[in-house]
């Protein structure tokens, strides 16, 4: 029983090892998320300038 747990713990220490393809895919996803967030920040910044003091006025 003890041996079994120890073996599993050793395997867990290694963690999930990604292949090169998985690393590339993860990197491309991370870059896309970063770009999307940056675009959102720029969009809100520009729209704040465009709306000026009326930025909080949102007609229904």
């Amino acid at each position, binding site marked *: *029983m003890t*041996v*079994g*747990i120890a*073996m*599993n713990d050793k*395997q867990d220490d290694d963690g*999930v090892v*990604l292949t090169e*393809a*998985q690393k*590339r*895919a*993860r990197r*491309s*996803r991370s*870059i*896309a998320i970063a770009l999307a967030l940056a675009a*959102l920040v720029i*969009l*809100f910044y*520009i*729209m704040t300038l*465009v*709306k000026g003091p009326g930025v909080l006025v*949102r*007609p*229904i």
Partner: protein
Amino acid sequence: MSLVSEGADFRGALVAAPAGLGLAEPSLADVRDYIALMKPRVMSLVVFTALVGLAIAPGSLHPMTGFTALLCIAVGAGAAGALNMGYDGDIDALMTRTARRPVPRGRIKRGEAIAFGMTLAAFSVATLGLLVNAFAAALLAFTIFFYAVVYTVWLKRSTPQNIVIGGAAGAFPPMIGWAAATGSLSLEPMLLFLIIFFWTPPHFWALALYRADDYARAGIPMLPVVAGDASARQQILRYTLILVPLGVAPWALGFAGPLYGLTAAGAGAIMVVLAWQVFCERRPAERASKRLFAFSILYLFLLFAVLLIERGWGGLLARLVV
């Protein structure tokens, strides 16, 4: 000893866990898979019809506000597409037309697609509400809900009227565009809604006629599968006969000029001829339905493009100059 093997089995089970649990192999999906999940071709039509709604609306709108509205509508359409593909992953795998989508190919798990769709939906609606107006945001939220829940979850697998009622989701974008520009609605955007609404059944049933085997294999009760070939052809003709006068209505009611009137009448006449050919054709011949399907896309594009040129282009230019 038995615990050792149970531990190994459990670990094996983790690796081979069903996609929904999120414990399976790390994803290989890249950005292209996520773009495909957003149905870019559908998105382009949504953006185009929303642009027309926005451009023909009265009043002034800052170009940046207009751009933001279109961006949010595009992302909202992508959200609806991702939710649809996430939920329909099982039946998409059974149809030739959809088997290459990211979920049936195993590139993206169904749960990941739904999470991606929910995230896009939340961001697009919130951004439209914060930066443009709340009414347009509410319409966008309703449209996403209608497509993802009413159409995809409820209607698609349960009734041959699925694309008739569900077609409303695709008809909302011009109304959202108009609402983004004005904060309200009027007869003109509702007429554009009706044109797309009545365009949808002939368009999709023409496709379903020559993809009937695909839909039958996936168990989707499309009209040609459930009611039969002849009934579907009759319904296509009926809906086309309703669509064509609606297409001319913006000119008849004075919303559009003579160029639009001529285009709508000419293209409408071709639609009727093609629908009549579909009505007269019998399986296994599929040429007429393929022609109608292809021309129906051009028909809708022509109507909205001419409306944009006649009514919206001047307004858009004026706004850009201002």
